């Protein structure tokens, strides 16, 4: 699905970061752990924007960030359908029905025509998730998508992702393995020197093991 060869994550003029090579297979579902400042988000941006060091099997990529990109003045359903609007595609009644159906799956069926500005953080995250699902992307990139949410909402989101993203290739970037444990099995660890793994996520059950791993010593 994704072949990365010698991608330099350093930011010009900043401290040097790792140059990585990494192969992601179709259907892989991987948590990418790492301390802040190791270039996790830079890596996702490079995947989205493209780079000579990255070969993508598909251009259909979905991205879900900590601050979901939802237009606050638009309604929930308008935000789910935003991709169609921005591409200038005609929205068939089929698409709208599908969007409504997906909103039901993320437990927002009754909120379709509410303005997004009025939703809670957890509800906004679910609107963004519904959009990701409607876009039928092959590769789903999640950049700390649960970071601003409380623990119970995180658990709910993880459960939803587990069911609804089951058929996709997933890279979940996080610095907290608890966000991934409920849902994924495999993890890679990004440090300022290299990318290591795969590890089994339950190897990081103890804080010591996690800190060792994030330091690149596991």
């Amino acid at each position, binding site marked *: 699905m994704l072949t990365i060869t010698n991608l330099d994550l350093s930011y010009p003029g900043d401290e040097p970061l790792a140059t990585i090579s990494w192969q992601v297979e179709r259907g892989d579902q991987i948590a990418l752990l790492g301390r802040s400042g190791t270039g996790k988000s830079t890596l996702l941006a490079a995947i989205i924007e493209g780079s000579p060091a990255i070969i993508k099997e598909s251009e259909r990529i979905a991205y879900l*960030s900590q601050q979901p990109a939802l237009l606050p*003045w638009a309604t929930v359903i308008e935000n789910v359908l935003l991709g169609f609007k921005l591409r200038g595609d005609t929205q068939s009644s089929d698409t709208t029905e599908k969007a409504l159906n997906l909103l039901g799956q993320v437990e927002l069926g009754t909120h379709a025509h509410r303005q997004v500005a009025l939703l809670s953080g957890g509800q906004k995250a679910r609107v963004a998730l519904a959009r990701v699902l409607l876009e039928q992307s092959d590769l789903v990139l999640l950049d700390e998508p649960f970071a601003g949410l409380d623990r119970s909402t995180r658990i709910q989101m993880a459960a939803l992702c587990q069911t609804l993203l089951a058929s996709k290739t997933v890279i979940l970037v996080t610095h907290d393995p608890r966000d991934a444990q409920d849902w994924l099995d495999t993890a890679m660890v990004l440090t300022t020197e290299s990318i290591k793994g795969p590890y089994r996520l339950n190897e990081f059950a103890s804080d010591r093991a996690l800190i060792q791993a994030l330091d690149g010593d596991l």
Partner: protein
Amino acid sequence: MNRLLSATFPFLLLVGLWWLVVITLEVPHFILPSPERVARVLVERLPLISGHAFTTASEIVCGLMLGTVLGFAVACLIGDSKKLTQITMPALVISQALPVFAIAPILMLWLGYGFASKLAMTTLIVFFPVTASTLAGFRAMPRSWELTFQTLRPKRSQLFWFVRFPLAIPYALSGVRVAASVAPIGAVVGEWVGSSSGLGYLMLHANGRGQTDLMFAALIVLCVEALLIWSLVNRLANRFDQNSHFAE
């Protein structure tokens, strides 16, 4: 009532101080007329003053509208392209860095002593804050949003009209608020340099004849006028703002 009192208190204090200075220092009235003298002139010469006030108000309001429309349009034209912004920015900054006093005589020469030159001055002064704030609005989109929208494979024009443009509106409005507070400068400076009506003209005229009280009366009317226009614009901007707040 309480709000009105706290808003007028500084003015009452100022007038009180003014009165005190006039009485205790026995300042001659052609240097500093007493508040009551100014008030009397204000009432007696009201038809004269209000005619000039109307001229100045229409210069300010029209300049404000034209400058806002132009500023917003220019920002929209160049805001979608980083390169175009970089190229145009120096010219925009220069248009603002040149003091209006320096440009005024040239505008008089080109546009005459009537309404047009004052409109141009006010427009010029309004234009920059509106353009600059709108451009800031175009740049304010978080990186994660840009990446997300990119994954939706948008058409450039659609992305502009449905996302970037509405997101920039609150920024543009704060530019308009600033512009409303500086717009009177353009109109009055224009009148000083050359005109036959307007509060700026009246003040200059009164000054030349030693009618300091009339000058003060005109100044007070100008202050009230500027304040009214500003609060009207502020109110309008707030109404628009409610419809387009940015994500928290």
